[in-house]
């Protein structure tokens, strides 16, 4: 039988990226899994600057799904409109391809763009209704390292953050990494 150990979060705020990278290294060497901590910064540092693992995403799938949906909706809309009001002009077919092509193109692109925007938000794990443990200095240039782990491992994490040079350490309820 597994025992349930409640989780807690701890946030270390670092004045520079080097110290935050040291903290990440310390956490990794203390057997903290990459899913148990995350880095927060107000600046887009180069990928892997903190020694974190590269996370995978599926953003590139979203435009294709959106394009397929947009294409289908546009075809259905243009076809249904013309079939609903069938007007034979000069013996030509009811469905007129050139105007349908324009609307289908626009529908496809619109679907792709809308789904890309939604995909970016979704893959960024947004929107977050509760921001959780956070420090406003992060957007001012500080770097935050947030650890969420079992309660009994929190003191180890705190120690690692302190040794790496965290300017302040906050403790709080788990926010989910």
């Amino acid at each position, binding site marked *: 039988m597994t025992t349930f150990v409640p989780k807690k979060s701890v946030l270390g705020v670092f004045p520079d990226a080097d110290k935050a990278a040291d903290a990440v290294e310390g956490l990794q060497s203390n057997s903290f899994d990459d899913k148990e901590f995350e880095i927060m*910064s*107000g600046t887009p*540092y180069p*990928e892997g600057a903190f020694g974190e693992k590269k*996370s995978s995403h599926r953003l590139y799938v979203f435009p294709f799904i959106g394009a397929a949906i947009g294409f289908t909706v546009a075809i259905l809309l243009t076809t249904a409109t013309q079939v609903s009001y069938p007007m034979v002009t000069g013996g030509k077919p009811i469905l007129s391809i050139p105007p349908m092509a324009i609307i289908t193109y626009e529908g496809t692109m619109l679907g792709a763009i809308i789904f890309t925007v939604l995909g*970016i938000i979704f893959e*960024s794990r947004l929107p*977050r209704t509760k921001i959780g443990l956070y420090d406003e200095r992060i957007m001012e240039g500080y770097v935050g390292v947030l650890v969420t782990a079992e309660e009994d491992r929190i003191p180890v994490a705190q120690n690692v953050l302190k040794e790496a040079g965290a300017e302040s350490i906050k403790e709080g309820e788990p926010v989910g990494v």
Partner: protein
Amino acid sequence: MFIALIPDLAVMRDRSTGVRKQIYGFLSLGFRGTPRQWRLQAIAGILLSALILPVFVSVHSIVSWDFGMAISVASWHTTVMAPYFVIGAVHSGVSAVVTMMALLRWVFKWDNYIRPEHFDGLARLLVVVGTAWFYFFILEFLFGLYSQESSEVTLRNMLLYEWPWNFMFIVFLLTSYFIPIPMWLFRGVRRNILLMFLTSILVNIGMWLERFLIIIPGLMRKQEFTFVWANYRPSVVEILLVVGSFAFVAMMVLLFSKVFPLIPLFDQKEGKVLEATTKIGRREVPSIVREE
């Protein structure tokens, strides 16, 4: 634009209080700047630009086809309309950006952010775009004469020889091409903010006149029989609509600049993080680190 604003909205959320904090907090969607979020921000910029560009071209093409397909209106029924409108939109749009850049630089004293080299780069682009646009303008003008249809020839006669159309036509040519483009060939002009401001305003005036000269003379239906001629004079309502639309756009730009950052803050911060100096011989040269 909203996606690119999210990180800056998070900065504003953290720097504001009360209702503003709530509004910016709602708009920033709880952004915290994790490496994953930053990575997706970078991809989003490339992906959305790539998707928007074909839409931009198609939107202007379709608008132009509304004119091009109008068989009965002189000067509209031409196949060159789509690229002519697309390149015209770039010419006037980039010029409007230059105008706004100069204004923002003066008003907010952003000398360190909007620099002469930015104006230089845009002016070089405008020389190419403006010349391409002028090529399509010549084609459009000549196609009408080449057709030898009386309505087309009469309309062009009117533009060239009849007051006040000839005056507007000359002003249009001078302001949209013959004054700004030769001036932008000189580096001193391209890097002079005041001259760039004035020349880009000229292009805006010229391109507004271009649209006026496409729409109004065609609709006047000036043909070979004098009894079907019509003249156009703007009514008070029309003048107010034009003035109102200019005022509305200006107000929206000012309101936007009041509540949202106009220069991406994270871009500036990233530049600071990545800036470095490289030693070449005995000199230290400023450089920037780039990720592949």
